[in-house]
């Protein structure tokens, strides 16, 4: 079945530094979505990428979808304490209604 792999599992970041989390699929995706889950909270939708090579920005967050539509990345610049949480990528195959979630990257920030 479809698997979405996500690395790293944990990311400890100094406040103000940048970091990137990566997502890879074994199959071509029709779209990929990113979610953020704060400690004790539920996943919250961040963004959806649909086109090959697509890049979208949300303030300090930059999301990319690979040319082959098999990988994606989330890059956060100038990390702040509000960025703490777990970031999940989730991919959807063509003609499939289901999302396959990656394992998540749990981010902690050192002030």
């Amino acid at each position: 079945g479809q698997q979405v792999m996500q690395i790293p599992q944990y990311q400890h970041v100094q406040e103000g530094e940048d970091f990137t989390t990566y997502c890879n699929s074994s199959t071509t995706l029709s779209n990929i979505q990113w979610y953020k889950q704060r400690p004790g909270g539920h996943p919250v939708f961040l963004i959806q990428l649909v086109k090959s090579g697509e890049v979208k920005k949300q303030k300090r967050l930059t999301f990319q979808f690979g040319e082959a539509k098999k990988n994606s990345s989330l890059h956060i610049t100038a990390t702040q304490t509000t960025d703490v949480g777990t970031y999940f990528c989730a991919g959807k195959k063509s003609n499939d209604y289901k999302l396959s979630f990656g394992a998540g990257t749990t981010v902690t920030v050192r002030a």
Partner: protein
Amino acid sequence: SAVISQKPSRDICQRGTSLTIQCQVDSQVTMMFWYRQQPGQSLTLIATANQGSEATYESGFVIDKFPISRPNLTFSTLTVSNMSPEDSSIYLCSVEDTNYEQYFGPGTRLTVT
């Protein structure tokens, strides 16, 4: 975006009993999903619930253990039957909007003793 509520928010249950979790959405939606999330883990899809049809279960999940109802386009229930400690988890419902974005309820934290 949709606003989703779940009841109960948490419960502690004895093994062998059953718990029904309710999910209410503030708008009509076609697709509703039920997920399980073990502490510190990712989300695992249990089943998809469409109004007017049987729920579609993922591999490893069966209707006898996790019966689902979907009586209308704004409501669904998931029952965790004959519970064991291995069922201790967070159960989340979600809905998909017309842009294929998913919105999650706050979750039900279940502990089975």
